[in-house]
């Protein structure tokens, strides 16, 4: 059941409509049902018993990136995204999950299936990919632009504790699935930079998927095991911080776990305590004087704000500062850097046309900067941007990768 305070929330919508053009999805579709106001009003009708949870309602509920732009812009301060998430969970029983999501999520919650999949995936990757039709796409992303699996999971490439002499700090590293299985470069960069700064990195064994993609699809119960496991492993007092390099994992650990537990009526103290400890890598690095360590590298760099970093966590300046601090780098702000890239996790394969319309604008903004590198602290954004960039000359990286390059 939707928590009581969320039910009250629907009455706080004054229907002013100021959310309409903040919504990237509405700006592609231009009908009210696709807008935040429309969805809030439908939820209100549903809660008042004037509307059945229909197939169409369900579809509209998932015609949303959960980018939180409406929440950030609502004059009445409505937590539109929380309402949407709770409603999705509410409808799960009736509508279930599409088989693709069920498969993916089962993979993500299982600690046995994933290594198994990775093992065979690595062996079969090339032959399998060659079987795929040329020019085919997953959603908006061409097969040819899909990242390759790490040859070895990142967490298997390092010991659990990476010691440094005379440590200046001590952190737990939540690697997230994307870094662990797909973007090892990011993980290596994080560890390299922290090591060079004299920080002891602990990568707790047994950590599992943050489960955000799972509970955003409504499957909260399925996600609970992961939430509890991660809380158990990361809620520790003997470290300075819990580091994440993924905006989505950060959003999950910082606030979504708490929301879910509270809405379930469970004690969320441990989750709140963990939330206070979690820092995006760009935030943690502000504690260090990188200036004298970094070597100059030339290049024009721009930055895209991930929704889960900017709006979910309020992190805006730190990643930009990080990029600016690399000597020789020319940082250029792109137009509408804070607008969603259109990825939205599984959104881009459920609504490829809407997503590609949104991504086209993002790609245009990136091109207009003349940058050769676009940095973003979210694997979903990087996938979406790289997948939609037609210019292979523009590189898509995590900000920390640039720092690592400047830090021999």
């Amino acid at each position: 059941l939707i928590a009581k305070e969320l039910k009250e929330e629907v009455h706080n919508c004054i229907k002013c409509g100021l959310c309409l053009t903040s919504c990237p999805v509405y700006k592609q579709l231009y009908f009210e049902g696709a807008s935040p106001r429309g969805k809030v009003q439908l939820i209100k009708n549903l809660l008042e018993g004037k509307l059945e949870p229909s197939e169409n309602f369900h579809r509209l509920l998932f015609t949303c990136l959960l980018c939180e732009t409406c929440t950030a812009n609502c004059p009445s301060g409505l937590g539109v995204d929380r309402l949407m998430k709770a409603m999705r969970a509410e409808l799960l029983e009736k509508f279930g999950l599409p088989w693709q999501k069920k498969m993916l999520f089962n993979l993500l919650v299982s600690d046995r299936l994933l290594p198994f999949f990775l093992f065979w995936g690595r062996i079969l990757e090339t032959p399998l990919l060659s079987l795929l039709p040329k020019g085919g796409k997953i959603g908006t992303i061409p097969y040819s632009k899909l990242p390759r699996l790490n040859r070895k999971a990142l967490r298997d490439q390092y010991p659990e504790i990476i010691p440094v002499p005379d440590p200046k700090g001590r952190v737990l590293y939540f690697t997230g699935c994307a870094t662990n299985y797909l973007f090892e470069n990011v993980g290596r960069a994080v560890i390299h930079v922290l090591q060079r700064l004299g920080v002891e990195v602990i990568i707790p064994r047994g950590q599992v998927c943050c489960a955000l993609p799972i509970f955003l699809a409504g499957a909260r119960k399925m996600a609970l095991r992961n939430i509890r496991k991660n809380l158990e492993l990361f809620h520790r007092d003997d470290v300075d911080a819990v580091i994440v390099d993924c905006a989505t994992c950060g959003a999950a650990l910082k606030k979504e776990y708490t929301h879910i537990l509270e809405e379930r009526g469970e004690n969320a103290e441990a989750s709140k305590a963990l939330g206070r400890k979690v820092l995006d890598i760009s935030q943690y690095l502000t504690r260090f004087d990188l200036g004298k360590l970094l070597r100059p590298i030339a290049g024009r760099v721009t930055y895209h704000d991930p929704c889960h970093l900017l709006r979910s966590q309020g992190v805006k300046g730190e990643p930009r500062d990080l990029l600016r601090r690399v000597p020789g780098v020319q940082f250029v702000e792109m137009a509408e850097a804070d607008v969603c890239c259109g990825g939205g996790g599984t959104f881009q394969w459920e609504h490829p046309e809407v997503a590609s319309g949104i991504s086209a604008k993002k790609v245009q903004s990136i091109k207009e900067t003349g940058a050769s590198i676009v940095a973003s602290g979210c694997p979903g954004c990087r996938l979406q941007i790289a997948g939609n960039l037609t210019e292979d000359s523009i590189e898509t990286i995590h900000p920390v990768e640039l720092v690592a390059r400047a830090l021999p």
Partner: protein
Amino acid sequence: MDFYSGELPKSPGHKEMDRAGKDSPMQNQEAWQKFASIVGIERVKTSKEDLLTYAYDAYVEEFLPDAVLFPKSPEEVSQIMRVASAHKIAVTPRGAGSGLGGCGLAKKGGVILCFTMMNRILEINTANRYAVVEPGVVISEFQKEVEKLNLFYPPDPGSATVATMGGAVLMNAGGMRGVKYGVTRDYLMGLEIVLPSGEVMKTGGLTTKDVTGYDLTRLICGSEGTLALVTKITVRLLPRPKSRRTLQAIYNRIDDAGNTVAKIVEAGIIPATLELMDKNIIKALEDFAHLGLPLNAEGILLIDVDGDLETVEKQAALVADFCRDLGAREVRVSQSEKENEQLWVARRSAFGAVARMRPTCVIEDATVPVSYLTPAIKKVIEISERNRVQIAVLAHAGDGNLHPLILCDQRDKDEMGRVEKAMEEIVDYAMSVGGTLSGEHGIGIAKARYLRKQLSGTALEMMRAIKKTFDPQGILNPGSFLEYAA
């Protein structure tokens, strides 16, 4: 994935919704088929979810339409109206649905004609300084485009980031720059309209001067969608002002703020904007945004002057002196565009800060001659206290346009009764000093019951006769102010 509503429903449609009058397209399979063949099935929406989301605007009351159509060209609009005329089906135009009076709602059912998908900027002509747009273009997006060419389209209603140009024309939208630059009406050069019969017609032209016959362009403007549908809009553009300075003056007494406004007007200075916020707004802002505004202040003025740099700096200094002379406890003058924006944070956050205090926020817009500004604000505060209704006052002070924000909970019948009483008293006061019922939001159904306070029987009869000339069958926006007013 597509979003059309599926198969054509067999008439009658949504029984459970207790809708579908006898003229409903749902019961008229033939008309229905024709509509679908004009715009295509994916631009006809009839699912319950779609109808529910077109039942509201930013006003309180709601009305379910029978169908929502999304035309993309004047030809489609024309064809739709031909069918609607032939079958006597009610048609109500709608833009973004940010209106505050229920003007764009299907008060008698029928079709909502939603223009959001007809949204191209057709031409920006720098040589003759005009632009032609389709009705669904969002105002602020249009402004951004013309500003790239160093031109300027001034009308900026508070909803400019979502409201459409078509909506602005039909409602004659105003905004904060009204004091210097006027309202939508002042920028219209010509329109392409579609009459209820389906006939396409042009009004006005591409010249600033035009005295050929009655000014039908400005008749359509502010007609609340009762006369014709607008399919192309030609607006005049100004050169973009070279610079702008913002002043913020904080007052212990609201009278001093009001006197400053009078002084500025008297001195012949026309600021680009002249906004006032009362103590309740200040309190809401401090509770919500913690801007460091003094809680014991009774009013804040926010003043913009614009033009070429020399004049602007001279005027800014002069206005600052007026503010100090007339008792402002603190005056800040911006020195750059960035500082302008910093000073504007308070005003921009005001609506949000107030709106979140209570579930419902009714935005009044009674307007008085500018010299009555201070007494009007005091009157509103008195009315609010006497009726035990929470009201915070914003005002476009330069043109006497009050925006009492009435905070309430729509579910509380007793409270809503008091709100209504307070609104009527505010209206009565505005009338008593030569003001108007509505400065910029329009009448719609929100204020129709007060219409006779301002318009004589003859005036109303004349308006109804005009309506009849355009729309003899009465199919365009039925249930409008013309019918509501007794």
